């Protein structure tokens, strides 16, 4: 039927993304925190590993992938939770807005913020802090962007299961920490217990970190790198679809 609401409409998606960014603009402190904290952390890390620059290279590159994932996860889960509790979600879903418009709108807006965040953190690491990247820094940026989308997707998804901001924040340790421990940041994944290694094989952050390390150590774009970004992008898409399924037009 031509009168129905399409799943997504480019103009509505863009309007939603613009609205999310406009909300952020009224909150300069959040913007500042989003942009500056990763840069500060990576600087801190540089001087923590002052005596062992090789360690800074591996951990730094991994963190460049992890920061956008964590921050976008937090920001999105709170933002969509607010959308649910303030009644604006119910209002939007009673209007001719496709679920895809809302989700893609958030992904676009926070993706744009993630690009800025990663440009700043990556640029600082490579050109100021002396992070030794063998491959192209642009690929680092690409992985960071995909990580941010994965974070947005996960945040959107878990916000459906949180009844309050308190709960939403607690999903951070629940969803992110296990991935952080198992992604190969602290110890190579092949040196973990067999069970944990198998678990880490199915967690998307493992591929995000591996992708970063591929760029760090190889000049050419490797097959593993393609696999890594495909897994991260695929997981992001999958979780976005799951997130869309949690948006119900009719609620009890």
């Amino acid at each position, binding site marked *: *039927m031509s*009168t*129905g*609401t399409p799943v997504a*409409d480019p*103009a*509505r998606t863009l*309007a*939603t993304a*613009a*609205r999310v960014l*406009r*909300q952020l603009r*009224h*909150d300069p402190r959040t913007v500042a925190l989003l942009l500056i904290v990763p840069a500060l952390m990576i600087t801190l890390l540089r001087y923590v590993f002052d005596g062992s620059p090789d360690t800074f290279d591996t951990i730094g590159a991994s963190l460049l992938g992890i920061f956008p994932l964590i921050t976008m996860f937090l920001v999105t889960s709170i933002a969509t939770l607010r959308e649910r509790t*303030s*009644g*604006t979600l*119910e*209002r*939007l*879903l*009673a*209007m*001719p*807005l496709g679920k895809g*418009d809302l989700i893609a709108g958030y992904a676009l807006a926070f993706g744009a913020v993630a690009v800025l965040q990663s440009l700043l953190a990556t640029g600082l690491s490579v050109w100021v802090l002396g992070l030794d990247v063998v491959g192209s820094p642009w690929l680092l940026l690409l992985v960071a962007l995909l990580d941010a989308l994965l974070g947005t997707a996960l945040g959107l998804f878990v916000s459906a299961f949180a009844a309050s901001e308190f709960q939403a924040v607690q999903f951070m340790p629940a969803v992110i920490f296990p991935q952080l421990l198992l992604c190969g940041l602290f110890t190579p994944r092949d040196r973990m217990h067999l069970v944990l290694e198998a678990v880490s094989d199915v967690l998307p952050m493992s591929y995000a970190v591996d992708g970063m390390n591929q760029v760090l150590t190889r000049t050419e774009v490797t097959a593993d790198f393609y696999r890594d970004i495909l897994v991260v992008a695929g997981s992001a898409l999958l979780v976005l679809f799951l997130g869309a399924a949690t948006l*119900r*037009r*009719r*609620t*009890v």
Partner: protein
Amino acid sequence: MMNKAADAGANAVEARALTVVRGDRTVLRALNFTVGAGRITGLLGPSGCGKSTLMRAVVGTQAKVTGTLDVLGRPAGHPALRPRVGYVTQAPSVYSDLTVRQNLDYFAAVLRPGRAHRGARRDTVTRALQDVDLTSHADALAKHLSGGQLSRVSLAVALLGTPELLVLDEPTVGLDPVLRRDLWDLFHALAADRGTTLLVSSHVMDEAERCHRLLLMREGTVLADDSPDALRSRTGSETVEQAFLHLVDTAATRQENSR
């Protein structure tokens, strides 16, 4: 700009055996009622009697609805109804971190997306701001507004698409008498000039007098579906409030006798 549905005698909403279950509680019990097109129908009853649930069912956001519920000639919640029905929830649902105009701009873009409609959108936003008398606050952040102003922003959003049916859940709660009068004048103007059908809930009985027709509700049932005048004369009461109490008492006696 009269709506076709506004012909005399047509119904904007028709419910037969409308039942809603929430958890293990039956919130609406086999309701039968109609809402006349182009008229103001008041939905009155004490808090918790099922007014909001009934409104959510009409708008199509309520789950577990059984029975028949037709809105503007289609089953409630049909996608084609989304641009034609405006809905204002009890709590103002707007973005507190956007200005009034930015809120309206966004919702207007959802209703009529695309660059081609930019001019038309600006006009509807301007008109909605005038309708609720907030033009002077257009550039204020929503979170800096008073409760009454905020609920008017929420109302303005619902007016954006010139909906044929407006469902307003307690739109005048917490407003001062002057604002309340102004809003009721607006509701009458919407019905008279734009042919809009309004379904307005309230638990303040004196607002009932301003409606063309009343649905009196109690504990998930409709006690009466009549005009304010007919209600008063039928029950021999001076006010709608007395008529309501009279109906509650008769219903209670009938229940006692049937036991």
